[in-house]
């Protein structure tokens, strides 16, 4: 019994060590720490983080920013879109969210809560409720596949600026971008 516990501890230590040594030399690959206050918003925070890296981080970056690539920056600003029920639904109706390869809606809700509350930092308005599996199930039926995504984003950004005092730079893909 005791030896098995020691073995498990040794294996865990070895696993942690090999990962940390592998990571030591890597540039620009560190995901943010998940704050303790945010953890209860997800059923499995670690899975949400690796799902984000696998499904989204290629383009959006492991910390939610790939400036100067022409992409909406997530880091410290995506939370403003939790301002109105409409803009909240927009986040779930984005084509790559609604058509995500994740079929489990609770898992997708976790991923989106990771995006909004971990990568988004403190940008979500105070008292914002996390996404639920039911909400994801409902909204992902209506993916934004017709019409201009850029125009819809701009309309909702303007609303967040007016109603939730979001910074004016929310209209742009990232602060200082030309688009």
């Amino acid at each position, binding site marked *: 019994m005791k030896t098995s516990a020691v073995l498990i501890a040794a294996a865990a230590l*070895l*696993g942690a060590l*090999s*990962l940390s040594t*592998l*990571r030591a*030399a*890597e*540039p*620009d*690959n560190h*995901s943010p720490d998940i704050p303790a206050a945010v953890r209860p918003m997800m059923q499995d925070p670690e899975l949400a*983080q*690796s799902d984000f*890296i*696998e499904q989204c*981080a*290629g*383009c959006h*970056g*492991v910390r939610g920013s*790939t*400036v*100067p*690539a*022409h*992409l909406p920056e997530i880091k410290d600003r995506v939370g403003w879109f939790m301002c109105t029920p409409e803009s909240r639904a927009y986040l779930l109706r984005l084509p*790559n969210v609604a058509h995500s390869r994740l*079929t489990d809606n609770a898992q997708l809700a976790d991923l989106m809560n990771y995006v909004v509350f971990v990568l988004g930092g403190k940008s979500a308005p105070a008292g914002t409720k996390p996404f639920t599996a039911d909400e994801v199930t409902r909204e992902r039926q209506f993916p934004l596949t017709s019409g201009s995504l850029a125009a819809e984003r701009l309309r909702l950004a303007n609303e967040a600026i007016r109603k939730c005092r979001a910074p004016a730079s929310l209209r742009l893909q990232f602060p200082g971008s030309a688009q």
Partner: protein
Amino acid sequence: MKTFNPDAMGEKLLRRFAGGTSRRGILARLGLALVAAPAFPLLPVSRASAAKPDRSPEAKTTFARNAQSTDDTKCTYWRYCAIDGSLCSCCGGAVNRCPPGAEHSPVSWVGTCINPDDGRAYLIAYRDCCGKAYCNKCDCDGTDRETQLYVPQLNNDVIWCFGTTSMEYHCSTAVLVGTA
């Protein structure tokens, strides 16, 4: 009188069949099937998607079975399971660093490779180095988990030089970004 009358034989057969079966019987059976069918998906069945990923040698791809963790200038190095292009480690850079004069693309696609040392799966970002002419050394094409071009975020034929000053492709790196 005919000795062989297929018409009469057919009639006799059909009349006997009609007399012995009920036309409403088929309705009852069809109705039963309609009512019972939705109950079957509720039965406990083993779903492939619900199972834990199988990491046994038999389940590994050909690449993962032959992967090594010592020489990152060979196509068989474990992180290259889904790389497509020249290895930066052969072009004056490193497995995760661009050669001098080339610029790291901030965007990439992300693959999943198994490290033969610990048998675990890791997420690897294939960030291209851009802004210099094609290196054309150590050309590799790993295709693990790659999909068709119409799912561009999971395709490695795409040149990922977006957000860089030049879209000219030089070589590819394999940066470890997380555990799977």
